[in-house]
Protein backbone atom coordinates (compact mmCIF):
# COMPACT_ATOMS: atom_id res chain seq x y z
CA UNK A 1 0.00 0.00 0.00
CA UNK A 2 2.83 2.40 0.86
CA UNK A 3 4.58 1.69 -2.44
CA UNK A 4 2.36 4.33 -4.08
CA UNK A 5 3.36 7.93 -3.63
CA UNK A 6 -0.27 9.10 -3.51
CA UNK A 7 -0.99 6.73 -0.63
CA UNK A 8 2.06 7.98 1.29
CA UNK A 9 0.96 11.58 0.73
CA UNK A 10 -2.58 10.74 1.78
CA UNK A 11 -1.38 9.09 4.98
CA UNK A 12 0.98 11.93 5.93
CA UNK A 13 -1.53 14.69 5.18
CA UNK A 14 -4.40 12.67 6.68
CA UNK A 15 -2.53 12.05 9.93
CA UNK A 16 -1.85 15.69 10.61
CA UNK A 17 -5.20 16.97 9.32
CA UNK A 18 -6.98 14.30 11.34
CA UNK A 19 -5.13 15.20 14.54
CA UNK A 20 -5.92 18.90 14.04
CA UNK A 21 -9.59 18.13 13.37
CA UNK A 22 -9.76 15.99 16.49
CA UNK A 23 -8.30 18.71 18.71
CA UNK A 24 -10.39 21.53 17.24
CA UNK A 25 -13.46 19.32 17.38
CA UNK A 26 -12.94 18.61 21.07
CA UNK A 27 -13.19 22.32 21.86
CA UNK A 28 -16.06 22.71 19.40
CA UNK A 29 -18.11 20.08 21.25
CA UNK A 30 -17.13 21.53 24.63
CA UNK A 31 -18.30 24.98 23.52
CA UNK A 32 -21.50 23.59 21.90
CA UNK A 33 -20.56 25.28 18.62
CA UNK A 34 -20.92 22.28 16.31
CA UNK A 35 -23.42 24.17 14.17
CA UNK A 36 -20.86 26.97 13.67
CA UNK A 37 -18.40 24.32 12.53
CA UNK A 38 -21.01 23.01 10.12
CA UNK A 39 -21.50 26.49 8.70
CA UNK A 40 -17.77 27.12 8.33
CA UNK A 41 -17.28 23.84 6.49
CA UNK A 42 -19.97 24.79 3.97
CA UNK A 43 -18.43 28.22 3.57
CA UNK A 44 -15.24 26.46 2.46
CA UNK A 45 -17.19 25.15 -0.53
CA UNK A 46 -18.24 28.61 -1.65
CA UNK A 47 -14.74 29.99 -1.13
CA UNK A 48 -13.10 27.28 -3.18
CA UNK A 49 -15.58 27.60 -6.04
CA UNK A 50 -15.36 31.39 -6.05
CA UNK A 51 -11.59 31.10 -6.39
CA UNK A 52 -12.02 28.54 -9.16
CA UNK A 53 -14.57 30.74 -10.97
CA UNK A 54 -12.24 33.72 -10.93
CA UNK A 55 -9.17 31.65 -11.79
CA UNK A 56 -7.33 32.04 -8.46
CA UNK A 57 -5.64 29.24 -6.53
CA UNK A 58 -8.40 27.24 -4.81
CA UNK A 59 -6.44 27.16 -1.56
CA UNK A 60 -6.49 30.95 -1.29
CA UNK A 61 -10.25 30.94 -1.73
CA UNK A 62 -10.64 28.28 0.96
CA UNK A 63 -8.61 30.05 3.60
CA UNK A 64 -9.88 33.56 2.88
CA UNK A 65 -13.53 32.46 2.94
CA UNK A 66 -13.37 30.40 6.13
CA UNK A 67 -11.29 32.90 8.08
CA UNK A 68 -13.35 35.92 7.00
CA UNK A 69 -16.59 34.15 7.90
CA UNK A 70 -15.09 32.99 11.21
CA UNK A 71 -14.24 36.60 12.04
CA UNK A 72 -17.73 37.67 10.94
CA UNK A 73 -19.43 35.07 13.14
CA UNK A 74 -17.24 36.11 16.04
CA UNK A 75 -18.13 39.74 15.47
CA UNK A 76 -21.87 39.04 15.35
CA UNK A 77 -22.15 37.93 18.96
CA UNK A 78 -20.74 39.77 21.96
CA UNK A 79 -19.27 36.59 23.39
CA UNK A 80 -18.17 35.43 19.94
CA UNK A 81 -21.17 33.09 19.84
CA UNK A 82 -23.74 33.93 17.18
CA UNK A 83 -27.09 32.23 17.61
CA UNK A 84 -28.17 29.31 15.43
CA UNK A 85 -30.81 31.20 13.49
CA UNK A 86 -28.37 33.90 12.40
CA UNK A 87 -25.76 31.32 11.46
CA UNK A 88 -28.34 29.30 9.54
CA UNK A 89 -29.61 32.31 7.63
CA UNK A 90 -26.15 33.50 6.66
CA UNK A 91 -24.88 30.16 5.53
CA UNK A 92 -28.03 29.33 3.56
CA UNK A 93 -27.20 32.40 1.50
CA UNK A 94 -23.50 31.56 1.27
CA UNK A 95 -24.39 28.13 -0.11
CA UNK A 96 -26.62 29.87 -2.65
CA UNK A 97 -23.62 31.95 -3.67
CA UNK A 98 -21.70 28.68 -3.96
CA UNK A 99 -24.32 27.45 -6.43
CA UNK A 100 -23.81 30.64 -8.45
CA UNK A 101 -20.03 30.27 -8.54
CA UNK A 102 -20.45 26.65 -9.52
CA UNK A 103 -22.62 27.70 -12.47
CA UNK A 104 -20.12 30.38 -13.50
CA UNK A 105 -17.24 27.95 -13.16
CA UNK A 106 -18.88 25.18 -15.14
CA UNK A 107 -19.57 27.68 -17.93
CA UNK A 108 -15.97 28.86 -18.06
CA UNK A 109 -14.89 25.66 -19.80
CA UNK A 110 -12.17 24.67 -17.36
CA UNK A 111 -14.61 22.96 -15.08
CA UNK A 112 -17.11 21.85 -17.67
CA UNK A 113 -17.24 18.33 -16.25
CA UNK A 114 -18.09 19.55 -12.76
CA UNK A 115 -15.36 17.35 -11.28
CA UNK A 116 -13.71 20.26 -9.46
CA UNK A 117 -16.92 21.06 -7.59
CA UNK A 118 -17.29 17.42 -6.58
CA UNK A 119 -13.72 17.39 -5.28
CA UNK A 120 -14.38 20.42 -3.13
CA UNK A 121 -17.61 18.94 -1.78
CA UNK A 122 -16.32 15.46 -1.08
CA UNK A 123 -12.55 15.81 -0.92
CA UNK A 124 -9.77 14.21 -2.89
CA UNK A 125 -7.29 12.90 -0.36
CA UNK A 126 -5.79 10.48 -2.88
CA UNK A 127 -5.09 13.33 -5.29
CA UNK A 128 -2.77 15.36 -3.04
CA UNK A 129 0.63 16.30 -4.47
CA UNK A 130 3.82 16.43 -2.39
CA UNK A 131 3.47 20.23 -2.04
CA UNK A 132 -0.17 19.91 -0.94
CA UNK A 133 0.94 17.39 1.64
CA UNK A 134 3.60 19.64 3.14
CA UNK A 135 1.21 22.59 3.24
CA UNK A 136 -1.35 20.38 5.00
CA UNK A 137 1.26 19.31 7.56
CA UNK A 138 2.36 22.92 8.13
CA UNK A 139 -1.16 24.32 8.53
CA UNK A 140 -2.20 21.48 10.83
CA UNK A 141 0.87 21.89 13.03
CA UNK A 142 0.32 25.65 13.24
CA UNK A 143 -3.36 25.14 14.14
CA UNK A 144 -2.55 22.54 16.78
CA UNK A 145 0.24 24.68 18.24
CA UNK A 146 -2.00 27.74 18.46
CA UNK A 147 -4.76 25.67 20.02
CA UNK A 148 -2.54 24.12 22.67
CA UNK A 149 -1.05 27.54 23.45
CA UNK A 150 -4.48 28.95 24.31
CA UNK A 151 -5.75 25.57 25.59
CA UNK A 152 -5.93 26.20 29.34
CA UNK A 153 -7.64 29.61 29.27
CA UNK A 154 -9.92 28.41 26.45
CA UNK A 155 -11.15 25.46 28.51
CA UNK A 156 -11.75 27.81 31.44
CA UNK A 157 -13.57 30.35 29.26
CA UNK A 158 -15.68 27.61 27.63
CA UNK A 159 -16.78 25.98 30.87
CA UNK A 160 -17.57 29.11 32.83
CA UNK A 161 -17.35 32.31 30.78
CA UNK A 162 -18.61 34.58 33.56
CA UNK A 163 -16.08 33.45 36.17
CA UNK A 164 -13.29 33.40 33.57
CA UNK A 165 -14.09 36.98 32.59
CA UNK A 166 -14.09 38.02 36.26
CA UNK A 167 -10.62 36.44 36.65
CA UNK A 168 -9.35 38.63 33.81
CA UNK A 169 -9.45 36.04 31.00
CA UNK A 170 -10.21 37.74 27.65
CA UNK A 171 -13.21 35.54 26.85
CA UNK A 172 -14.28 37.32 23.66
CA UNK A 173 -10.79 37.41 22.17
CA UNK A 174 -10.29 33.70 22.97
CA UNK A 175 -13.58 32.81 21.29
CA UNK A 176 -12.59 34.75 18.19
CA UNK A 177 -9.11 33.17 18.07
CA UNK A 178 -10.72 29.77 18.37
CA UNK A 179 -13.07 30.46 15.45
CA UNK A 180 -10.12 31.54 13.29
CA UNK A 181 -8.22 28.35 14.14
CA UNK A 182 -11.39 26.41 13.35
CA UNK A 183 -11.64 28.21 10.00
CA UNK A 184 -8.04 27.39 9.05
CA UNK A 185 -8.49 23.75 10.03
CA UNK A 186 -11.74 23.53 8.07
CA UNK A 187 -10.07 25.00 4.98
CA UNK A 188 -7.24 22.48 5.22
CA UNK A 189 -9.49 19.50 5.92
CA UNK A 190 -11.72 20.42 2.96
CA UNK A 191 -8.96 19.22 0.66
CA UNK A 192 -8.84 15.88 2.43
CA UNK A 193 -12.43 14.88 3.17
CA UNK A 194 -14.37 17.68 1.47
CA UNK A 195 -16.54 20.56 2.60
CA UNK A 196 -19.61 18.39 3.17
CA UNK A 197 -17.97 15.62 5.14
CA UNK A 198 -15.42 17.35 7.33
CA UNK A 199 -18.00 17.91 10.05
CA UNK A 200 -17.87 14.16 10.67
CA UNK A 201 -14.12 14.18 11.22
CA UNK A 202 -14.46 17.19 13.52
CA UNK A 203 -17.53 16.19 15.53
CA UNK A 204 -17.57 12.39 15.77
CA UNK A 205 -14.14 11.57 17.31
CA UNK A 206 -14.41 14.57 19.63
CA UNK A 207 -17.88 13.60 20.82
CA UNK A 208 -16.67 10.04 21.39
CA UNK A 209 -13.70 11.31 23.42
CA UNK A 210 -15.98 13.51 25.54
CA UNK A 211 -18.00 10.46 26.43
CA UNK A 212 -15.06 8.16 27.14
CA UNK A 213 -12.70 10.31 29.23
CA UNK A 214 -13.50 12.86 31.93
CA UNK A 215 -9.99 14.29 32.36
CA UNK A 216 -9.75 17.13 29.80
CA UNK A 217 -6.18 16.47 28.65
CA UNK A 218 -6.67 12.73 28.32
CA UNK A 219 -9.95 13.33 26.50
CA UNK A 220 -8.28 15.87 24.19
CA UNK A 221 -5.51 13.42 23.29
CA UNK A 222 -8.10 10.69 22.77
CA UNK A 223 -10.05 12.92 20.35
CA UNK A 224 -6.95 13.45 18.21
CA UNK A 225 -6.03 9.76 18.37
CA UNK A 226 -9.53 8.63 17.36
CA UNK A 227 -9.60 11.07 14.45
CA UNK A 228 -6.21 9.87 13.20
CA UNK A 229 -7.30 6.25 13.61
CA UNK A 230 -10.42 7.03 11.58
CA UNK A 231 -8.33 8.51 8.77
CA UNK A 232 -5.89 5.59 8.73
CA UNK A 233 -8.60 2.96 8.85
CA UNK A 234 -10.62 4.74 6.19
CA UNK A 235 -7.66 5.10 3.85
CA UNK A 236 -6.71 1.45 4.27
CA UNK A 237 -10.29 0.34 3.64
CA UNK A 238 -10.60 2.51 0.55
CA UNK A 239 -7.32 1.07 -0.73
CA UNK A 240 -8.58 -2.47 -0.21
CA UNK A 241 -12.01 -1.76 -1.73
CA UNK A 242 -11.37 0.81 -4.48
CA UNK A 243 -15.07 1.33 -5.24
CA UNK A 244 -15.59 2.95 -1.85
CA UNK A 245 -14.45 6.60 -1.83
CA UNK A 246 -11.87 7.27 0.92
CA UNK A 247 -13.87 10.16 2.43
CA UNK A 248 -16.90 7.88 2.87
CA UNK A 249 -14.77 5.20 4.54
CA UNK A 250 -13.20 7.76 6.91
CA UNK A 251 -16.51 9.29 7.94
CA UNK A 252 -18.32 5.97 8.34
CA UNK A 253 -15.50 4.71 10.54
CA UNK A 254 -15.50 7.87 12.66
CA UNK A 255 -19.28 7.60 13.09
CA UNK A 256 -18.98 3.96 14.14
CA UNK A 257 -16.40 4.96 16.76
CA UNK A 258 -18.83 7.55 18.09
CA UNK A 259 -21.68 5.04 18.15
CA UNK A 260 -19.52 2.56 20.07
CA UNK A 261 -18.45 5.25 22.54
CA UNK A 262 -22.05 6.34 23.11
CA UNK A 263 -23.05 2.72 23.67
CA UNK A 264 -20.23 2.14 26.16
CA UNK A 265 -21.04 5.37 27.97
CA UNK A 266 -24.71 4.41 28.28
CA UNK A 267 -23.66 0.95 29.49
CA UNK A 268 -21.33 2.38 32.14
CA UNK A 269 -24.02 4.74 33.34
CA UNK A 270 -26.54 1.91 33.63
CA UNK A 271 -23.96 -0.10 35.60
CA UNK A 272 -23.31 2.82 37.96
CA UNK A 273 -27.02 3.35 38.57
CA UNK A 274 -27.50 -0.37 39.27
CA UNK A 275 -24.60 -0.37 41.72
CA UNK A 276 -25.92 2.73 43.46
CA UNK A 277 -29.31 1.05 43.84
CA UNK A 278 -27.81 -2.10 45.31
CA UNK A 279 -25.67 -0.15 47.77
Amino acid sequence: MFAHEFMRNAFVAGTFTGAACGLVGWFLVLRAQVFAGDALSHVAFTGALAAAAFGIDVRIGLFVATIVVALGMGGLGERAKADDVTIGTVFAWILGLGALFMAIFSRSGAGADGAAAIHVLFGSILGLSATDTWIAVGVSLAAMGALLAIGRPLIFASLDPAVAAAQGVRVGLLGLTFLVILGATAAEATQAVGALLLLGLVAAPAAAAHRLARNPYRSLALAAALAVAGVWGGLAFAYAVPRVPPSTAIIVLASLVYLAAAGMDAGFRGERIRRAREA
Partner: protein
Amino acid sequence: MLTSAAFEGLSWNLWADIVGLFDFPFMVHALVAGTAVALVAGPVGWLMVLRRQTFAGHTLSVISFPGAAGAALIGLPLGIGYFGAFAAGALALSGVSRGDSGTESRESAATGTIQALALALGLLFVSLYHGLLNGVSGLLFGTFLGITSTQAAVLALIAFAALALLTVAWRPLVFASIDTEVARARGVPVRALSLGFLLLLGLTVAATSQITGALLVFALLVTPAAAAQQLTARPMLGVALATGIALAVTWIGLGLAYYSIYPAGFFITSLAFLVYVSTRVRSVVVRA
Protein backbone atom coordinates in the same frame (compact mmCIF):
# COMPACT_ATOMS: atom_id res chain seq x y z
CA MET B 1 -17.84 35.93 -14.92
CA LEU B 2 -21.05 37.84 -14.69
CA THR B 3 -21.78 39.09 -18.15
CA SER B 4 -24.41 41.21 -19.81
CA ALA B 5 -25.76 37.98 -21.27
CA ALA B 6 -26.70 36.83 -17.80
CA PHE B 7 -30.32 37.58 -18.57
CA GLU B 8 -31.47 36.44 -21.98
CA GLY B 9 -34.86 37.11 -23.45
CA LEU B 10 -35.94 39.82 -21.07
CA SER B 11 -37.83 42.50 -22.96
CA TRP B 12 -38.17 45.21 -20.30
CA ASN B 13 -41.92 44.78 -20.76
CA LEU B 14 -42.67 43.31 -17.35
CA TRP B 15 -46.14 42.05 -18.20
CA ALA B 16 -44.98 40.29 -21.38
CA ASP B 17 -42.13 38.73 -19.45
CA ILE B 18 -44.45 37.44 -16.75
CA VAL B 19 -46.83 35.99 -19.32
CA GLY B 20 -43.80 34.46 -21.03
CA LEU B 21 -43.11 32.45 -17.89
CA PHE B 22 -46.16 30.34 -18.57
CA ASP B 23 -45.24 29.47 -22.17
CA PHE B 24 -43.70 26.13 -21.29
CA PRO B 25 -45.35 23.39 -19.26
CA PHE B 26 -42.17 22.70 -17.26
CA MET B 27 -42.23 26.24 -15.93
CA VAL B 28 -45.91 25.94 -14.95
CA HIS B 29 -45.09 22.71 -13.10
CA ALA B 30 -42.17 24.39 -11.39
CA LEU B 31 -44.35 27.29 -10.27
CA VAL B 32 -47.09 24.99 -8.96
CA ALA B 33 -44.55 22.86 -7.11
CA GLY B 34 -42.72 25.91 -5.81
CA THR B 35 -45.96 27.41 -4.50
CA ALA B 36 -46.93 24.20 -2.72
CA VAL B 37 -43.50 23.90 -1.15
CA ALA B 38 -43.36 27.53 -0.01
CA LEU B 39 -46.83 27.27 1.57
CA VAL B 40 -45.57 24.49 3.88
CA ALA B 41 -42.04 25.79 4.36
CA GLY B 42 -43.37 29.04 5.86
CA PRO B 43 -45.22 27.65 8.91
CA VAL B 44 -42.91 24.65 9.43
CA GLY B 45 -39.86 26.90 9.27
CA TRP B 46 -41.46 29.32 11.72
CA LEU B 47 -41.95 26.48 14.21
CA MET B 48 -38.43 25.23 13.59
CA VAL B 49 -36.97 28.62 14.46
CA LEU B 50 -39.26 28.86 17.50
CA ARG B 51 -38.10 25.43 18.69
CA ARG B 52 -34.42 26.27 18.04
CA GLN B 53 -34.06 23.21 15.84
CA THR B 54 -32.21 24.82 12.96
CA PHE B 55 -29.33 22.36 13.17
CA ALA B 56 -31.71 19.41 13.12
CA GLY B 57 -33.52 20.99 10.17
CA HIS B 58 -30.31 21.39 8.26
CA THR B 59 -29.33 17.80 8.97
CA LEU B 60 -32.71 16.50 7.85
CA SER B 61 -32.47 18.51 4.66
CA VAL B 62 -29.05 17.06 3.88
CA ILE B 63 -30.33 13.52 4.43
CA SER B 64 -32.44 13.76 1.29
CA PHE B 65 -29.22 13.59 -0.73
CA PRO B 66 -28.31 9.98 0.18
CA GLY B 67 -32.01 9.13 -0.08
CA ALA B 68 -32.24 10.29 -3.66
CA ALA B 69 -28.83 8.91 -4.59
CA GLY B 70 -29.68 5.55 -3.04
CA ALA B 71 -33.00 5.42 -4.87
CA ALA B 72 -31.23 6.17 -8.16
CA LEU B 73 -28.71 3.41 -7.41
CA ILE B 74 -31.29 0.65 -6.92
CA GLY B 75 -33.62 2.01 -9.57
CA LEU B 76 -36.48 3.27 -7.42
CA PRO B 77 -38.32 6.53 -8.17
CA LEU B 78 -36.50 9.48 -6.57
CA GLY B 79 -39.57 10.46 -4.58
CA ILE B 80 -39.47 7.19 -2.62
CA GLY B 81 -35.82 7.79 -1.81
CA TYR B 82 -36.53 11.31 -0.59
CA PHE B 83 -39.39 10.30 1.66
CA GLY B 84 -37.76 7.08 2.89
CA ALA B 85 -34.63 8.95 3.90
CA PHE B 86 -36.50 11.66 5.77
CA ALA B 87 -38.38 9.12 7.88
CA ALA B 88 -35.13 7.37 8.80
CA GLY B 89 -33.48 10.71 9.54
CA ALA B 90 -36.31 11.99 11.73
CA LEU B 91 -36.27 8.77 13.75
CA ALA B 92 -32.49 8.92 14.19
CA LEU B 93 -32.65 12.55 15.29
CA SER B 94 -35.47 11.94 17.75
CA GLY B 95 -33.36 9.16 19.25
CA VAL B 96 -30.62 11.73 19.76
CA SER B 97 -32.70 14.44 21.37
CA ARG B 98 -33.88 13.49 24.81
CA GLY B 99 -35.08 16.99 25.50
CA ASP B 100 -33.16 17.10 28.78
CA SER B 101 -31.30 20.25 29.68
CA GLY B 102 -27.52 20.18 29.84
CA THR B 103 -27.11 17.71 27.00
CA GLU B 104 -27.15 20.39 24.34
CA SER B 105 -23.54 20.04 23.24
CA ARG B 106 -23.70 16.25 23.05
CA GLU B 107 -26.90 16.44 21.09
CA SER B 108 -25.42 18.79 18.54
CA ALA B 109 -22.32 16.63 18.20
CA ALA B 110 -24.51 13.60 17.53
CA THR B 111 -26.58 15.61 15.04
CA GLY B 112 -23.42 16.66 13.24
CA THR B 113 -22.23 13.06 13.11
CA ILE B 114 -25.53 11.91 11.63
CA GLN B 115 -25.30 14.64 9.01
CA ALA B 116 -21.75 13.78 7.94
CA LEU B 117 -22.59 10.08 7.89
CA ALA B 118 -25.61 10.72 5.66
CA LEU B 119 -23.55 12.77 3.22
CA ALA B 120 -20.80 10.16 3.21
CA LEU B 121 -23.34 7.47 2.31
CA GLY B 122 -24.71 9.76 -0.41
CA LEU B 123 -21.22 10.02 -1.89
CA LEU B 124 -20.90 6.23 -1.74
CA PHE B 125 -24.19 5.70 -3.58
CA VAL B 126 -23.30 8.29 -6.18
CA SER B 127 -19.90 6.77 -6.86
CA LEU B 128 -21.38 3.27 -7.10
CA TYR B 129 -23.93 4.65 -9.54
CA HIS B 130 -21.96 5.78 -12.50
CA GLY B 131 -24.45 8.24 -13.94
CA LEU B 132 -22.44 10.74 -11.96
CA LEU B 133 -21.63 14.35 -12.00
CA ASN B 134 -24.52 16.39 -13.32
CA GLY B 135 -26.83 14.36 -11.16
CA VAL B 136 -24.89 15.28 -8.04
CA SER B 137 -25.14 19.02 -8.47
CA GLY B 138 -28.84 18.60 -9.32
CA LEU B 139 -29.46 16.69 -6.10
CA LEU B 140 -27.46 19.13 -4.01
CA PHE B 141 -28.42 22.43 -5.59
CA GLY B 142 -31.74 21.61 -7.19
CA THR B 143 -33.16 21.77 -10.63
CA PHE B 144 -36.61 22.96 -11.50
CA LEU B 145 -36.41 22.12 -15.18
CA GLY B 146 -37.33 18.47 -14.92
CA ILE B 147 -40.46 18.65 -12.77
CA THR B 148 -43.28 16.63 -14.31
CA SER B 149 -46.98 17.26 -13.86
CA THR B 150 -47.20 14.14 -11.67
CA GLN B 151 -44.44 15.43 -9.41
CA ALA B 152 -46.14 18.80 -9.13
CA ALA B 153 -49.43 17.11 -8.24
CA VAL B 154 -47.75 14.89 -5.63
CA LEU B 155 -46.04 17.89 -4.07
CA ALA B 156 -49.32 19.80 -3.94
CA LEU B 157 -50.98 16.82 -2.26
CA ILE B 158 -48.17 16.52 0.30
CA ALA B 159 -48.37 20.23 1.01
CA PHE B 160 -52.10 19.91 1.63
CA ALA B 161 -51.65 16.94 3.97
CA ALA B 162 -48.83 18.62 5.88
CA LEU B 163 -50.85 21.81 6.33
CA ALA B 164 -53.85 19.81 7.55
CA LEU B 165 -51.69 17.98 10.13
CA LEU B 166 -50.16 21.24 11.22
CA THR B 167 -53.58 22.87 11.70
CA VAL B 168 -54.76 19.99 13.89
CA ALA B 169 -51.65 19.93 16.09
CA TRP B 170 -50.98 23.67 16.03
CA ARG B 171 -52.01 24.79 19.51
CA PRO B 172 -50.34 22.03 21.57
CA LEU B 173 -47.28 22.22 19.33
CA VAL B 174 -46.78 25.95 19.90
CA PHE B 175 -47.45 25.48 23.62
CA ALA B 176 -44.90 22.66 23.89
CA SER B 177 -42.37 24.68 21.92
CA ILE B 178 -42.63 27.80 24.03
CA ASP B 179 -42.69 26.22 27.47
CA THR B 180 -41.90 22.51 27.47
CA GLU B 181 -42.06 22.06 31.24
CA VAL B 182 -45.43 23.71 31.75
CA ALA B 183 -46.84 21.92 28.73
CA ARG B 184 -45.67 18.56 30.11
CA ALA B 185 -47.20 19.35 33.48
CA ARG B 186 -50.50 20.15 31.78
CA GLY B 187 -50.49 16.71 30.16
CA VAL B 188 -49.45 17.71 26.66
CA PRO B 189 -47.64 14.73 25.06
CA VAL B 190 -44.38 16.63 24.56
CA ARG B 191 -42.22 13.75 23.31
CA ALA B 192 -44.79 12.51 20.82
CA LEU B 193 -45.23 16.06 19.54
CA SER B 194 -41.49 16.43 19.22
CA LEU B 195 -41.20 13.28 17.11
CA GLY B 196 -44.27 14.30 15.13
CA PHE B 197 -42.76 17.67 14.40
CA LEU B 198 -39.47 16.13 13.25
CA LEU B 199 -41.43 13.86 10.88
CA LEU B 200 -43.34 16.86 9.55
CA LEU B 201 -40.10 18.80 9.17
CA GLY B 202 -38.62 15.86 7.29
CA LEU B 203 -41.67 15.65 5.03
CA THR B 204 -41.42 19.34 4.25
CA VAL B 205 -37.72 19.14 3.61
CA ALA B 206 -38.12 16.10 1.38
CA ALA B 207 -40.67 18.00 -0.67
CA THR B 208 -38.70 21.23 -0.74
CA SER B 209 -35.40 19.66 -1.71
CA GLN B 210 -36.90 18.44 -4.97
CA ILE B 211 -37.08 22.10 -5.99
CA THR B 212 -34.13 23.72 -4.28
CA GLY B 213 -31.80 20.74 -3.82
CA ALA B 214 -30.63 19.28 -0.53
CA LEU B 215 -28.26 22.10 0.36
CA LEU B 216 -30.50 25.09 -0.33
CA VAL B 217 -33.70 23.87 1.36
CA PHE B 218 -32.59 25.78 4.33
CA ALA B 219 -33.05 29.14 2.63
CA LEU B 220 -36.80 28.57 2.34
CA LEU B 221 -37.17 27.11 5.83
CA VAL B 222 -35.08 29.28 8.10
CA THR B 223 -34.65 32.60 6.35
CA PRO B 224 -38.31 33.68 5.89
CA ALA B 225 -39.06 32.52 9.43
CA ALA B 226 -36.10 34.39 10.88
CA ALA B 227 -37.19 37.53 9.03
CA ALA B 228 -40.78 37.15 10.27
CA GLN B 229 -39.60 36.78 13.87
CA GLN B 230 -37.67 40.03 13.52
CA LEU B 231 -40.88 41.74 12.47
CA THR B 232 -43.43 40.39 14.92
CA ALA B 233 -43.75 38.22 18.01
CA ARG B 234 -47.38 37.32 17.31
CA PRO B 235 -47.66 33.70 16.16
CA MET B 236 -50.37 33.96 13.52
CA LEU B 237 -48.99 37.12 11.98
CA GLY B 238 -45.48 35.64 12.08
CA VAL B 239 -46.56 32.48 10.29
CA ALA B 240 -48.44 34.50 7.68
CA LEU B 241 -45.41 36.73 7.10
CA ALA B 242 -43.02 33.78 6.85
CA THR B 243 -45.29 32.07 4.35
CA GLY B 244 -45.71 35.26 2.35
CA ILE B 245 -41.96 35.83 2.19
CA ALA B 246 -41.32 32.20 1.22
CA LEU B 247 -43.92 32.44 -1.57
CA ALA B 248 -42.66 35.76 -2.93
CA VAL B 249 -39.06 34.65 -2.85
CA THR B 250 -39.85 31.39 -4.65
CA TRP B 251 -41.91 33.04 -7.38
CA ILE B 252 -39.45 35.85 -8.06
CA GLY B 253 -36.49 33.48 -7.82
CA LEU B 254 -37.99 31.02 -10.31
CA GLY B 255 -38.95 33.88 -12.61
CA LEU B 256 -35.47 35.38 -12.57
CA ALA B 257 -33.86 31.99 -13.09
CA TYR B 258 -36.11 31.35 -16.10
CA TYR B 259 -34.64 34.34 -17.90
CA SER B 260 -31.13 33.87 -16.62
CA ILE B 261 -28.29 31.43 -17.13
CA TYR B 262 -27.75 31.16 -13.39
CA PRO B 263 -29.39 28.67 -11.03
CA ALA B 264 -32.73 29.27 -9.29
CA GLY B 265 -31.18 28.28 -5.97
CA PHE B 266 -28.89 31.28 -6.08
CA PHE B 267 -31.75 33.73 -6.71
CA ILE B 268 -34.02 32.17 -4.08
CA THR B 269 -31.36 32.17 -1.36
CA SER B 270 -30.16 35.68 -2.20
CA LEU B 271 -33.66 37.19 -2.25
CA ALA B 272 -34.50 35.52 1.05
CA PHE B 273 -31.28 36.76 2.59
CA LEU B 274 -31.98 40.27 1.31
CA VAL B 275 -35.37 40.22 3.04
CA TYR B 276 -33.75 38.99 6.25
CA VAL B 277 -31.06 41.67 6.21
CA SER B 278 -33.64 44.41 5.64
CA THR B 279 -35.70 43.19 8.60
CA ARG B 280 -32.57 43.18 10.76
CA VAL B 281 -31.75 46.73 9.66
CA ARG B 282 -35.35 47.73 10.33
CA SER B 283 -35.33 46.39 13.89
CA VAL B 284 -32.03 48.16 14.58
CA VAL B 285 -33.50 51.44 13.28
CA VAL B 286 -36.74 50.97 15.23
CA ARG B 287 -34.84 50.27 18.44
CA ALA B 288 -32.63 53.35 18.01
